[in-house]
């Protein structure tokens, strides 16, 4: 397992609002013997997938990224592209699937982008959670935990992009366990709650902020009622939206890699705000 090198696609959020997510993802992966190599070149994946059958143009950004992965993958002799942001995962995975399943669409896109090499459809898009579960294994993760975590009651929040539609789901779309198992491997208490697969309202934060504030408050309240003191997510938009809830003293939402970094004793990779969240939890109990 040591010395595994995997290419990864960061996307816009990890370079702006979710810098802590990228920093902790790279650090915890390294601790587990996985070197995450950023694609040498990349562009925005498009964030959302266009469902219209004739919307070929909307898939081009994602296909360009898959070509970048194809180029770099040749050098590494590996076809796996790791995503960290849920929305990048979903968009790249769905576009990849659609061009693999529809050779005519792929041919049209390749012909349109005649300045690029053709995309051959051989890249496999995976999520970092899958790397930790399937390539590293939870036993190895357990070995790296250096902190007592039992006071942390973490509610995994999956949101939509990792689980739906089911063709691209990383787990059972109705009853996912992948984050719960990870949280338990870290020695914290996993709080499975009924809203774990709910949508955070996504880009409604632009359309009508009230919808997002209400949705976020509902999710927070449910997690609290089931006994959580923290919500753990994989998605920078869920992270923003859930922390946008107007409730006073609502429980905070952090990235799963931040929980891992804390468990592994990698405090130096955590922001002062996130460290404060953990310290507060430990003080309160």
């Amino acid at each position, binding site marked *: 397992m040591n010395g595994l090198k995997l290419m990864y696609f960061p996307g816009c959020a990890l370079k702006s609002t979710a810098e802590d997510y990228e920093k902790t993802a790279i650090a915890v992966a390294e601790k587990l013997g996985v070197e995450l190599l950023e694609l040498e070149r990349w562009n925005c994946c498009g964030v959302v997938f266009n469902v219209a059958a004739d919307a070929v143009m909307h898939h081009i950004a994602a296909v360009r990224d898959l070509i970048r992965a194809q180029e770099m993958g040749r050098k590494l002799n590996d076809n796996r592209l790791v995503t960290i942001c849920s929305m990048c995962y979903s968009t790249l995975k769905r576009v990849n699937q659609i061009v693999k399943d529809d050779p005519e669409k792929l041919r049209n896109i390749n012909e349109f982008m005649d300045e690029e090499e053709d995309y051959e459809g051989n890249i496999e898009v995976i999520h970092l959670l899958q790397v930790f579960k399937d390539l590293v294994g939870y036993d190895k993760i357990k070995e790296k935990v250096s902190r007592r975590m039992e006071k942390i009651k973490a509610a995994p929040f999956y949101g939509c992009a990792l689980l739906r539609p089911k063709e691209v789901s990383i787990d059972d779309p109705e009853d996912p366990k992948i984050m719960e198992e990870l949280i338990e491997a870290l020695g914290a208490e996993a709080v499975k709650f009924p809203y774990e697969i*709910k949508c955070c309202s996504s880009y409604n934060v*632009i359309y*009508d902020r009230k919808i997002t504030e209400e949705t976020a408050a509902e999710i927070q309240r449910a997690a609290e009622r089931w006994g959580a003191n923290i919500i753990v997510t994989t998605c920078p938009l869920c992270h923003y939206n859930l922390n946008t809830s107007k409730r006073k003293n609502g429980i905070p939402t952090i990235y799963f890699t931040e929980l891992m970094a804390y468990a592994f004793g990698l405090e130096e990779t955590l922001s002062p705000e996130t460290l404060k969240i953990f310290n507060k939890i430990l003080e309160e109990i």
Partner: protein
Amino acid sequence: MFRGLSQKVYDLTGINVYLCHQCGICSGSCPLVKSMDIPPNMVVRMVQMDMNEVLNSKTIWICASCFNCTVRCPRNIDPARIINALRIIKQREGVYAVDLRKIEKLEELPQIALIAASRKLTG
């Protein structure tokens, strides 16, 4: 079999809306139904009935394509995709749900939300 709206939805998505038997699980599963003016199952019914008013509903813009209904639909007709198709019909007429130039505190909003909104809520 198809006419008007149901034809347009079919052309955009390949979905036959007449397979819907109005069980309502889409509306029961929708996390944003409270904010909608027309629940998802009724949107599908209005497409079946070729009622163009559905194109003026708030629902077609509020749906966040979370695909909860898609996963649960017993007829596999993908209500989220039907709603998205209605939105695309409006977008192609030049109707958008937000004016990106008028968004307040633009610099405080995350890029991920702005890009998603610009792709889903504008042409």
